[in-house]
């Protein structure tokens, strides 16, 4: 008995000590203390005696204001811990960190799709195509595809800048892929190949926001690229809450309420962001819901920004991905199509090629004048990286039945997707078994977003170290188990509620240890702080 109490006492010290040691964070804490808006600090001219020209006082205040929790505080703590483990193995109760913070599959052992890599290698070094001894390393259809792609590139030069929107032939392929997916035609001139979804979002937000009086409707919880980009461009974030009780449902009444509230504050709402499948929430929208959303945008005069990067990640038989383009086309507005920006990326799906930075935005329903402006802003960067462009075309036009690589390709794809579905279920069940934790199923995407009922004592302990309660929980979890998650405050949540985002990406053989460590930790945490 005494031993047990003493053991508990040590653990109590562990949690608060850990946070005290690492909790006060000089650079960024969960509520930003830097005040944006006005130029704080003047930059005087003349001589060495005055403050240097670029400092925290004189930096663009929008930079100070924007946040990106996915690579924020908790992640930075994890990096430090990683360093400590390297220098001092045995200094912690675990010998490796378990990264569940970022949708970065290959970093956790997921293998690239062989066919895709074959084609990319051949395009990067076409000499291999010209010599029989090297060509023999590759499947015949990869060779054929590489030839096809290189013929679409002037001089076979993958090292040359392309057209700003991307190589025409690749856009043709992608347009065909979109048509095959949706059953409605796609125009290659509507497609902009980009270095990942993020630059596309920046371009569109930049076009829309004239001042802080312009607002963008963003889901709460959301992937903080949106809040970050809105802050960076000086606009206003207009939140709309997804309903956790109904599997993170999107209610039009909520959209309407938030729109009216924003209007009453003098904000002009310019666009609606919808992430489908959702991040961090994982829900897949029902088609009827999507039609309501399109109607809403039409009636309210909003641009619809559809983040569809997880379109190939759907794990439940009762849901299916439908693109907003398809839904919108099926509603037959014709000339009066809603302005729609559809985003796809090569970073997710079953291919997970995050490090390439590739993807596209399909831009429909805009005037040609606006299309020119989009082109103009995109052209400042000249073009996106060619390798990523090629990969985007492969993702939208993978091997088909009858192709030499089809069977092995299918097997690889199936293995990854079914494994993701299994991991989603296992983790969901594990989370739901924890005291005070409820977790909606991950219908799609790559994350689970459980809600934790934190006891009052825990909330007070968090306050005492000047930390948000869910960040406190995440930090304790990190220091006790090495598991890295992102606290819900980074994504937004109903005030007074606490969540964290955990990816389903660690390899299947790591899942049991994650479950057991998490379960053990949570029990100890609740024992410590239970009311």
């Amino acid at each position, binding site marked *: 008995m005494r031993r047990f109490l003493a053991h508990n006492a040590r653990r109590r010290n562990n949690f608060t000590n850990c946070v005290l040691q690492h909790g006060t964070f000089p650079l*960024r804490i969960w509520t930003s203390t830097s005040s944006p808006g006005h*130029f704080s600090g003047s930059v005087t001219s003349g001589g*060495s005696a005055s403050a*240097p*020209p*670029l*400092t*925290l006082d*004189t930096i663009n205040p929008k*930079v100070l204001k*924007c*946040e990106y929790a996915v690579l924020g505080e908790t992640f930075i703590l994890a990096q430090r811990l990683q360093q400590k483990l390297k220098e001092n193995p045995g200094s912690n109760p675990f010998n490796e960190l378990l990264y569940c913070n970022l949708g*970065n*599959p*290959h*970093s956790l*052992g997921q293998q*690239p799709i062989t066919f895709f*890599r*074959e084609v*990319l*290698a051949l395009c*990067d*070094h076409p*000499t291999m195509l010209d010599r029989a*001894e*090297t060509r023999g*390393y590759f499947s015949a259809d990869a060779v054929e595809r590489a030839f096809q792609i290189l013929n679409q590139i002037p*001089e076979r030069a*993958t*090292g*040359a*800048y392309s057209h*700003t929107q991307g190589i025409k032939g690749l856009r043709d392929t992608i347009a065909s892929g979109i048509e095959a997916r949706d059953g409605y035609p796609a125009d290659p001139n509507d497609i902009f190949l980009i*270095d990942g979804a*993020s630059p596309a979002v920046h371009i569109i937000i*930049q076009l*829309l*926001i*004239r001042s802080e009086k312009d607002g963008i409707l963003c889901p709460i919880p959301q992937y*903080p*690229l949106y809040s970050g980009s809105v802050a960076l461009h000086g606009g206003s974030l207009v939140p709309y809450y997804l309903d956790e009780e109904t599997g993170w449902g999107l209610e039009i009444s909520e959209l309407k309420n938030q729109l009216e509230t924003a209007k009453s504050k003098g904000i002009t709402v310019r*666009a609606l962001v919808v992430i489908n499948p959702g991040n961090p929430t994982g829900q897949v929208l029902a088609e009827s819901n999507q039609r309501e959303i399109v109607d809403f945008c039409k009636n309210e*005069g909003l641009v619809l920004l559809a983040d569809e990067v997880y379109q190939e990640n759907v794990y439940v038989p009762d849901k299916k991905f439908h693109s907003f383009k398809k839904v919108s086309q099926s509603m037959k507005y014709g000339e009066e199509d809603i302005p729609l920006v559809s985003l796809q990326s090569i970073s997710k799906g079953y*291919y*997970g090629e*995050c*490090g*390439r*930075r590739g993807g596209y935005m399909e831009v429909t329903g805009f*005037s040609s*004048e606006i299309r020119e402006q989009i082109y*103009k802003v995109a052209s*400042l*960067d*000249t073009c996106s*990286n*060619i*390798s*990523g462009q090629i990969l985007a075309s492969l993702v939208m036009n993978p091997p088909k039945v009858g192709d030499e690589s089809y069977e092995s390709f299918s097997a690889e794809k199936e293995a990854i997707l079914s494994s993701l579905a299994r991991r989603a279920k296992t983790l969901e069940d594990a989370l739901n078994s924890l005291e005070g934790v409820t977790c909606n199923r991950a219908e799609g995407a790559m994350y689970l977003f459980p809600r934790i009922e934190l006891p009052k004592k825990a909330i007070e302990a968090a306050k005492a170290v000047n930390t948000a309660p869910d960040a406190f929980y995440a930090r304790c979890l990190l220091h006790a188990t090495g598991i890295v998650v992102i606290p819900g405050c980074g994504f937004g949540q109903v005030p007074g509620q606490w969540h964290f985002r955990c990816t389903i990406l660690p390899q299947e053989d790591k899942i049991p240890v994650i479950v057991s460590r998490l379960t053990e930790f949570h029990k100890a945490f609740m024992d410590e702080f239970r009311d």
Partner: protein
Amino acid sequence: MSKPLDYENLNENVKKCQYAVRGELYLRASELQKEGKKIIFTNVGNPHALGQKPLTFPRQVIALCQAPFLLDDPNVGLVFPSDTIARAKHYLSLTSGGLGAYSDSRGVPGIRKEVAEFIERRDGYPSDPELIFLTDGASKGVMQILNATIRGDRDGILVPVPQYPLYSATISLLGGSLIPYYLEETANWGLDIVNLRQSVAQARSQGITVRAMVIINPGNPTGQCLSIANLKEVLQFCYQNNLVLLGDEVYQQNIYQDERPFISARKVLMDMGGPISKELQLVSFHTVSKGYWGECGQRGGYFEMTNISPKTVEEIYKVASISLSPNVPGQIFLGLMVNPPKPGDISYERFVRESKGILESLRKRAQIMTDGFNSCRNVVCNFTEGAMYSFPQIRLPPKAIEAAKKAGKVPDVFYCLKLLEATGISTVPGSGFGQKDGVFHLRTTILPAEEDMPAIMASFKKFNDEFMEQYEDYRGYSRM
């Protein structure tokens, strides 16, 4: 109800920003190309598009990184040189999961270290990898730093005229003010410190806070290589006026004369020693797109910060992290560029042969073009000391200027469109880069293949002489 996103309700800054390199001339050239006309694109520094072959070594390494299953094959050593295999393995081990994993938002740490080591070898002073951020091309880095600096329209950035219009476009987009300082064409596009001081004084009198100064060395479109004395002047000037110096050094490998080899702004700063070397804030930019590499399509680059405080660096890191990470293949190209094959490596000889071949040819082409332009009586062209462009001054007769006005075009745009339609040569009018009032230029690259150069210059001369015949009437030329 007006459309949700229409020209009227578009962000004003977007309306203001212009980027001529991919503007009117380029679009017209693309149209003509679609109609079947042969176009010689000399509008952008895009070497591989004009036949320059990629260097073999990096392509071998990247192919092995793309398809690591090749490395597992027992016979790979028969097909790939052993140093390419070693390098591929080395870079793959530095990544967090191969080419397909996000790296650190600042770039793969091991590659940043290679960049720091390169800078140290080049300049003779240690460089801190923590202050080096890899980016998807140098342009993204420039945009990030300008975004951190510009708070509003009261913040001014000193930019050379003529300049590469990424600077003017980005400053417009970010809502800042561009403060031009004119390079002196008659002094080989040299820096004029008097003009610089005047520009700053004028800006300040209008209530503008001058925040930073851009130098492009070697220059684009002008090609001039700054002397040590010039660089010292610039550094002192920035120090005295409390400016961040932005050193665009992407053409540092492209030097075509021997009097003024490339010397980095950082080296000059460190050589100066004293308080300035510890206080003057400098950001230096480099890329894999230029030099003798010309790997534009990879989008690989970096910026190095000097004397920027850790807290400010943190904020810049934060913004970079929103885009997660620069593309990993581009980072590997950068690593290979700063750490190329060494004497004794199997690939060394071929690498040197290929590199030298490209640089020697560029030097020749710079000369052919300069001479070709200067052989036209109404054209004056400074020699291309570095970079990849020729920026001849075209003296236009008044009748031509009138005709341009009638057609609703700026005179140099008018000239360049006619040149395009007559010869297929696609250039960028000087107005896209900035020039003194009433003085006209065009920018072309020196990149068309060496064997095509004589024909291209002959074609230009023929067009120009015919143009002059059509519009000349002995009333004299445009000023200067």
